[in-house]
């Protein structure tokens, strides 16, 4: 990133709306597709300060900004963009961080095209303001310049809160609660904090240093993290409830769903969770790691969401000549972020669309040799209004491959709920909460994927923020209720 003297108003008079309209949307500089398809470095290289300030000029500062309404946590987008284009980065960063605890993460992983940018006024005629890229720019600046940010030291309240799970929901809640002076301990099952941000989303999309820096910042602010603590095993929820004044459950929806077809126990079949955990958390992409992972020449990934895109692009980087997506619906229905699909296509990922697996075939040594599939066509609309794919009889065929990665969704893990009989869960095992975010147990709150079913980082963060405010009020504090985020029904697996 080039650091230049910010232009002042003398240098550059304010633009007219017409001039703003004439600026084209910036393109994110990327590593060349052929080069990045064999490395794990981040694909998007980030904007320079000058280009970021120019892109911020494209914002029309609408009197009624739709983008704020499009953001699940109502980030005041025009406010931070105005500060950015004025070159006041400390103020832009403070403004952004006030609304969003992990902007360096969301700037990289939010599906902006269906949120803030999807409703941006400029998208009506041309291209939306590149809000995600600008969010990332300001957030990265903030991470590199911690001393230039406002830092308030809160008065300790003496209240203690246990947070279970260190994904985006847990980290956000922890950050909000320490800001209010509460003593926070996060219990995490794994040896490292970050949840899906460290075990699921790969390095080339979200560098682990960035997540670690956020975790370190929380620790510096006084958050205690207890790794290797599995609630339901190492401690039970009732134990935590007696030890702490309040508890926030943010354990995610970590259980893998398999296809339930013959041959799934053959060697070479992975759940996306296992594949990505081996590669990301355990560092198997790195030659120095002790954790093994299989390297297939031909890898079929079943599913069409972000998890499937991450798996297939990982396989490509680990040397697969043919890395394929097998998805039962069409291209336009892929649930992944648009940028991920675009990047995957650039990297030479093959898409076998309107196809569903029926069997994994193995060789005489028990290794995968092919995925047997059937072609699908759109049928009657299902509950979500999308056409339900139905198999075309007699259309079975084989996709030769040595590895199959199953990325068709996740569900709730009963490990914690099994030791807490009083905790009300839905018939699918998701924790039920009231309008304040409290569960059926007094003083125990929940949020993120364990409430919604597999959703998004920003929705999990919104839940963390809302729960923190509710916990503070529960403990007699005066935190205003955070902007209400509607909890939709648990999403259908991809």
């Amino acid at each position, binding site marked *: 990133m080039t650091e230049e003297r910010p232009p002042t108003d003398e240098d550059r008079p304010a633009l007219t709306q017409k001039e703003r309209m004439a600026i084209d949307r910036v393109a994110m500089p990327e590593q060349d597709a052929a080069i990045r398809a064999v490395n794990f470095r981040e694909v998007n290289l980030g904007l320079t300060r000058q280009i970021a300030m120019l892109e911020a000029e494209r914002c029309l500062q609408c009197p009624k900004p739709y983008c704020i309404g499009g953001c699940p946590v109502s980030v005041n987008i025009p406010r931070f963009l105005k500060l950015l284009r004025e070159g006041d980065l400390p103020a832009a960063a403070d403004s952004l961080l006030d609304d969003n605890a992990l902007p360096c993460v969301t700037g990289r992983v939010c599906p902006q095209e269906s949120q803030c940018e999807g409703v941006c006024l400029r998208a009506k005629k041309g291209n939306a303001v590149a809000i995600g890229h600008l969010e990332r720019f300001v957030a990265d600046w903030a991470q590199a310049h911690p001393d230039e940010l406002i830092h308030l030291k809160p008065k300790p309240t003496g209240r203690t809160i246990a947070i279970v799970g260190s994904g985006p929901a847990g980290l956000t809640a922890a950050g909000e609660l320490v800001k209010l002076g509460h003593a926070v301990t996060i219990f995490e099952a794994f040896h490292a904090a970050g949840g899906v941000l460290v075990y699921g989303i790969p390095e080339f999309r979200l560098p682990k240093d960035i997540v670690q820096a956020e975790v370190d910042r929380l620790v510096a602010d006084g958050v205690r993290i207890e790794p290797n603590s*599995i609630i339901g095993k190492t401690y039970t929820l009732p134990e935590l409830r007696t030890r702490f004044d309040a508890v926030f459950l943010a354990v995610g929806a970590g259980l893998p769903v398999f296809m339930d077809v013959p041959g799934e*126990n053959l060697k070479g079949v992975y759940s996306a969770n296992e594949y990505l955990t081996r590669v990301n958390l355990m560092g198997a992409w790195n030659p120095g790691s002790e*954790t093994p992972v299989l390297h297939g020449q031909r890898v079929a990934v079943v599913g069409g969401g972000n998890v499937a895109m991450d798996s297939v692009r990982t396989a490509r980087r680990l040397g697969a000549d043919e890395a394929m997506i097998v998805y039962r619906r069409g291209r336009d229905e892929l649930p992944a972020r648009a940028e991920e699909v675009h990047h995957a296509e650039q990297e030479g990922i093959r898409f076998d669309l309107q196809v569903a697996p029926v069997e994994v075939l193995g060789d005489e040594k028990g290794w995968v040799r092919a995925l047997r599939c059937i072609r699908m066509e759109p049928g009657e609309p299902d509950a979500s209004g999308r056409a339900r794919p139905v198999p075309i009889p007699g259309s079975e065929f084989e996709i030769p491959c040595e590895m199959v990665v199953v990325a068709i969704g996740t569900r709730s893990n009963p490990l914690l709920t099994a030791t807490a009989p009083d905790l009300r869960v839905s018939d699918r095992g998701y924790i039920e909460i009231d309008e304040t975010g409290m569960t059926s147990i007094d003083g125990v709150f929940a949020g993120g994927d364990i409430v919604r079913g597999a959703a998004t980082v920003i929705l999990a963060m919104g839940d963390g923020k809302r729960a923190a405010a509710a916990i503070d009020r529960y403990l007699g504090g005066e935190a205003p209720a955070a902007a209400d985020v509607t909890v939709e029904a648990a999403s259908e697996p991809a």
Partner: protein
Amino acid sequence: MHPIVARDQLSPNVTRLVVEAPRIAEIRRPGQFVIVRLGEGAERIPLTIADADPAAGTISLIIQSVGASTMDLVALQPGDAIRDVAGPLGRPTDLIDQGRAVCVGGGVGTAVVYPIAEELHRRGVSVTSVIGGRSREWVILEDELRTAGEVVVCTDDGSYGRHGFVTEALRDLCDAGPIDEVFAVGPVPMMRAVAELTRPYGIRTTASLNAIMVDGTGMCGGCRVSIDGQSRYACVDGPEFDAHAVDFASLADRLTTYRSFEQEALARHEACLIPALADRLGDPPPTTGPVAGSAAR
């Protein structure tokens, strides 16, 4: 950090480490395990909790050094420490309260059987342990098991105890009188042979499955085993299952998934000690079928 407070060598390749882990020592039950990670970059390794001393806040881990990761673990000395110890994981053994039980342990599997035998004995169950090894020096925990009841030792070469496999001794016990339950832990072929042996006798038989694991909490599915045709997770639904329902062939096969990687890792590990070997490591791994490796490119 979890300091090592004691270490002893039980057989040429089996080591006992006594490790500080107060919370786990306090609440663990027989049949449960921990996942340890020695340090940054190290693998997560599941290990049965062979014993615990809640007063001292320690647990005993009995480790067979088979690969690079376990070799690093058994090289630890008192005063060294393990970075991560997570647990206790898995379901505790479903134990009977009376009657007669036979605990069969093969090799390092004896370490898994020991806490079960001890607890059964404490509950008043009459316990006979049948333990085996290749030869005398490979037999472990004999003295410990004697405190829980009778012990029959078998060696493949007849250098100690009874000459032959543990299954032969077990057959005699089955013929000699009623048995309420058999626990079998050891190499897959041994557990499978025990299951086949007890099936016609109709004796309830439990095996502890050493599936490949990552997290140990149900989130990866890597430890899936086939029980009565159904996929189950060894880490949360097990590790103990009804031995008569286990698909041992599938388990044995899945356990070979990373064999080429393990050999490579072991060679790399030894090359650190034998510089001449290091040259050979430039060789690319075989390219037919998926190649296990941390970076094949």
